[in-house]
């Protein structure tokens, strides 16, 4: 039988911000590790964007060598405690697991987390760096792509400096994903590990403003831009600037980055009402919904398609339902209604039905005529996606972009400026943590090749 992780019971967890999934016990991990068939040609690895030797680390866990298992993972993945928690394994490694044919894939995510969490309590892993190079590389952004690239370059011997605009490192891992899904202590630990590899992280450094790309090029041989997709999208409906309408980014940044849920112990406030509407169907929308539940509000998630089309992880949808989030499917907001003070007092919606498949392959929602109705709510959180951060691009002459705002790169991830590379959400648009990490790894290899070929010529 597939081992599943224990969770904090819904009734308890909606009263706190502690982690929901509790991870494997030693016994569970051993049972699960023993289930692995140790395939000769493992298909799970092909599903992993950073190609972790999955059977390899599971074998070590089976042999009760937890430290060695972690080392095995870290050969490829610098942030396993994070990936074990937030990767959509069901679409990647576990989907490919041969046991998935019987609907019982190995719980690879939980095993990865089990191996990684060893480092939290028992020891601090570091790698001996064989040869230290003099060459300096700058990484812009300390999210998953930036941290991964920095760590890989450091292990190749480069002197790496990461520039982060916020006052804490981690990017979306810190400001975006809530504590109950990814405890900030985990992020801090992974960042500490990367610092032990010799990476320097410069906080409060907004590249474009505090330093220009030109400034960095005079000091660094190469630059990796990994500034992510942080530009919030709004619906463009009337009433969107009313008080108590938040972008998901603002709501989550107040809660996760600034810890507004501990106000006034922490000085950043949040103002939400008793009845909150979340607009959107992705993981960010689900995160917002579950945060609002924990702040004591009744939460309705409004999504224009049906449950089948929701881009959010199945596990998170189930968690949200268990915590009392009400889902209103096939519902599209058309207007936000204000009270006398300019605060939200309602959300006018229209019912939708599914028509033909659209470009994304999902059935396109079409409005049902005269089906408008009003949801009586007092707070709206808009979680309909993020676009690439435009700030750096705007102030960097010569840095070319595509129409959607993503930075143009060639097959080696190099941008239109020689020596400047880019990867992660800034070139793909909003995507998962692990695909950003995959891009960070590729960038490290490309930057290494670029620097070496430059030295030769």
């Amino acid at each position, binding site marked *: 039988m597939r081992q599943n992780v224990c969770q904090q019971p819904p009734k308890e967890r909606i009263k706190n911000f502690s982690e929901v999934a509790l991870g494997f016990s030693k016994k569970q991990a051993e049972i699960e590790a023993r289930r692995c068939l140790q395939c000769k040609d493992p298909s799970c690895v092909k599903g992993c964007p950073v190609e972790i030797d999955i059977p390899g680390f599971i074998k070590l866990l089976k042999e009760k060598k937890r430290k060695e298992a972690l080392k095995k993972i870290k050969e490829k993945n610098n942030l396993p405690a994070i990936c074990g928690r937030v990767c959509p394994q069901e679409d990647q490694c576990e989907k490919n697991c041969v046991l998935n044919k019987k609907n019982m894939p190995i719980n690879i995510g939980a095993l990865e987390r089990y191996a990684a969490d060893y480092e939290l309590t028992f020891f601090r892993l570091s790698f001996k760096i064989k040869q230290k190079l003099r060459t300096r590389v700058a990484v812009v952004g300390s999210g998953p792509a930036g941290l991964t690239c920095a760590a890989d370059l450091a292990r190749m011997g480069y002197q790496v400096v990461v520039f982060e*605009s*916020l*006052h804490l490192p981690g990017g979306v891992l810190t*400001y975006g994903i809530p504590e109950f899904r990814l405890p900030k202590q985990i992020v801090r630990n992974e960042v500490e590990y990367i610092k032990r590899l010799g990476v320097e992280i410069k*906080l*409060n*450094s*907004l590249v474009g*403003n*505090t*330093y220009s790309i030109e400034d960095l090029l005079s000091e660094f041989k190469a630059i990796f831009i990994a500034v992510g997709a*942080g*530009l*919030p999208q*709004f619906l463009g409906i009337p009433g*969107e*600037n009313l*008080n*108590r309408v*938040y*972008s998901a*980014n*603002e709501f989550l*940044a*107040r809660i996760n*980055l*600034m*810890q507004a849920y501990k*106000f*006034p*112990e*922490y*000085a*950043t*406030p*949040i*103002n939400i009402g008793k009845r909150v509407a979340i607009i959107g169907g992705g993981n960010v929308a689900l995160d917002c919904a579950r945060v609002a539940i924990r702040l004591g509000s009744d939460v309705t998630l409004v999504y224009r398609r049906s449950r089948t089309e929701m881009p959010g992880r199945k596990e998170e949808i189930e968690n949200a339902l268990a915590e009392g989030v009400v889902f209103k499917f096939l519902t599209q907001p058309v207007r936000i209604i204000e009270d006398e*003070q*300019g605060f939200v007092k309602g959300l006018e919606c229209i019912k939708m039905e599914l028509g033909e498949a659209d470009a994304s392959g999902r059935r396109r929602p079409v409005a049902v005529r005269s089906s408008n109705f009003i949801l009586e709510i007092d707070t709206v959180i808009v979680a309909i996606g993020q676009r690439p*951060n*435009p*700030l750096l691009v705007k102030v960097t002459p010569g840095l070319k972009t595509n129409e959607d705002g993503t930075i143009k790169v060639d097959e080696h991830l190099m941008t239109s400026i020689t020596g400047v590379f880019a990867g992660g959400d800034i070139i793909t648009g909003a995507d998962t943590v692990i695909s950003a990490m995959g891009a960070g790894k590729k960038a490290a290899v490309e930057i290494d090749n670029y620097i070496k070929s430059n030295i030769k010529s």
Partner: protein
Amino acid sequence: MFKVINKENLAKEVTKIVVKAEQIARKAKAGQFVVVIVDERGERIPLTLADWDKDKGTITLIFQKIGFSTKKLGSLNPGDKIEHILGPLGHPTEIKKWDKVVCIGGGVGIAEAYPVCRAFKEAGNYVIGIIGTRNKDLLILEKEMKKVCDELFITTDDGSYGEKGFVSDVLKRLSGYNFVYAVGPIPMMQAVSKITQEYHIKTIVSLNPIMVDATGMCGACRLRVGNCTVFGCVDGPDFDAHAVDFEELSRRLKIFTEAERKIDAQFNS
């Protein structure tokens, strides 16, 4: 960490601090701002750069101690450290030769008008300054403003210094100017905007909406300008006064009033 080098109380509730921040000083331009986090549990507050010194590697912040965070910042002394400062942020004020420029500062906004006045002066403009406060005790930077303005008018609401009335009263009787820059309380900027709109004189206001990251990521500072939603932090802080929806801006500044009262009470107790 950023060390406070100097501190001076300029007026009742108005404090000036000079802080070591070399990289920001190197890059600063008139009209830009920084985000300050006073201590580990602090919030991110945007403050306009009142001055900077590239050689000494310092920046100057002038602020009114009106809320929890500004009171905390104001309680720091030379030698104390500020946890985080990010900047310079926002677009610099567009400085060019207009010929005759009017720069208006209301209240603590005088501190923000000062570097802009200086920049316009350095660009060869004839600069008329108008500064105003509620009363004499709140007036700041009179001497500094005199140095960078060809003419300087001072008003107080109660007539305790300079002429009695508002900065807009002075503006009404001026003529021959072809550009106005105004920074201060919203009603003041609105009044200025109304006057110049009539004469189609280009007027720029520097706005200070609520911000969190101040790098274009959260949208807390969104404003309506010319019927488009823009972000105060990355599209501003300067905007065409005649296109700004001031009503929406003042309404959005009230989102956290209750919380601010609550935490302020905590500071005072």
